[in-house]
C-alpha cells in the first residue's frame, strides 16, 4: 500500500511518465524559435503581425497538441500502465494563464529596458525564466530530470548573453531548451517502453 499523501503528486507526475509531453513541448519550443528567427528576415509588418498573433497561436497549439498527445498516449501509455482523466482547466483559466504568462514576460522585458539595462541581459533573463519553471516542475512533481533542464537553460542563457546579440541569443535559449526537452523526452519514452515491455514479458 502506498502512502496517501503521495497520491496527488504521483497522479500529476503520471502525465510525464512516458516523456511524451516533454517531447511535444520541446518540439513546440524549437518550432517557435525557428518561426521567430525566420520572422527577422521578413517584412517588418509581417513579422509584427506574427508577433501579435503569437499568444493565439500558442493557445491553439496547446489545445491541438494536447489532443494529439492524448491520441498517442492512448496507443502507447494507457494500454500499458492505465488511463487517467485529469480535471480540465477550462477555457477561462487557460486563457487567463496564457495572458498572465505573456504579461509577466512583457513586464520583465519592459523593466529591463526601463532601467536601461543592457539588452545583452535578455537571453540570460529568458534562461532564468525557463530555469525557474523547470525548477518549479521538478520540485512540485519530484522529477529530477527537470533540474538538469533548469541548469542547461541557465547555462545556455549565460553563454548566449556573452556571445550573441539579444534577439539571436533569446531565440537560441528558447530553441536549445526545446532541443534539451525533446531529447530528454525521447530518452524517457525509450526507457518507459523498455520497462513496460519487460513487465509484459515477466507477466
Amino acid at each position: 500500500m502506498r502512502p496517501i499523501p503521495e497520491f496527488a503528486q504521483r497522479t500529476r507526475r503520471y502525465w510525464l511518465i512516458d516523456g511524451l509531453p516533454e517531447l511535444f513541448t520541446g518540439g513546440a519550443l524549437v518550432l517557435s524559435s525557428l518561426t521567430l528567427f525566420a520572422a527577422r528576415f521578413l517584412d517588418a509588418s509581417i513579422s509584427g503581425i506574427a508577433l501579435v498573433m503569437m499568444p493565439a497561436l500558442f493557445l491553439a497549439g496547446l489545445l491541438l497538441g494536447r489532443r494529439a498527445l492524448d491520441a498517442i498516449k492512448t496507443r502507447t501509455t494507457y494500454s500499458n500502465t492505465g488511463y487517467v482523466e485529469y480535471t480540465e482547466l477550462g477555457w477561462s483559466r487557460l486563457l487567463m494563464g496564457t495572458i498572465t504568462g505573456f504579461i509577466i514576460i512583457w513586464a520583465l522585458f519592459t523593466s529591463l529596458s526601463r532601467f536601461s539595462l543592457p539588452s545583452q541581459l535578455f537571453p540570460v533573463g529568458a534562461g532564468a525564466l525557463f530555469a525557474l519553471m523547470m525548477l518549479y516542475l521538478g520540485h512540485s512533481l519530484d522529477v529530477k530530470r527537470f533540474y538538469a533542464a533548469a541548469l542547461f537553460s541557465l547555462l545556455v542563457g549565460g553563454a548566449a548573453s556573452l556571445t550573441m546579440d539579444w534577439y539571436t541569443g533569446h531565440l537560441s535559449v528558447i530553441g536549445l531548451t526545446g532541443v534539451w526537452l525533446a531529447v530528454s523526452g525521447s530518452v524517457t519514452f525509450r526507457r518507459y517502453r523498455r520497462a513496460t515491455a519487460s513487465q509484459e514479458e515477466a507477466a
Partner: protein
Amino acid sequence: MTGAHDYHVDTLDRFIHEPARLMIVALLYSVERADFLYLQRETGLTKGNLSAQLSKLEQVGYVRIEKTFRGKMPLTVCSLTAEGRQAFEQYRARVQQLMAATQQRPYVV
C-alpha cells in the same frame, strides 16, 4: 459550534475508513476518472480485492463504474460521484477535527 458528538470516532464514515477503500477514494478524488489498471498499479491491491472494494463503493453510491472504449481499447473507468466526493471531504474534515483534539496533553501540577 462543535458538539461533543463530533469527537466520537464512530461518527467517521466506515465505508471510507477501511484502508483499501480509503486509498481508492483518495486516489479518485485527485482525478476526474481513472481506469481499473491505473487504480490497481497505484494502490498495489490485487485484481480481486480492488474489484470487491470498488463494487462496495459503487453499491453505496460513492463510485461510478463505466465500461467504455478509447479507440479500440476497452476500459473500465471509475470516478467518484458527487456524493462520494462530498463524503470524502466530510471524512477528511472529521479526521482533522479528531486529530486536532488529540494534540492537547493533559498534565497535573
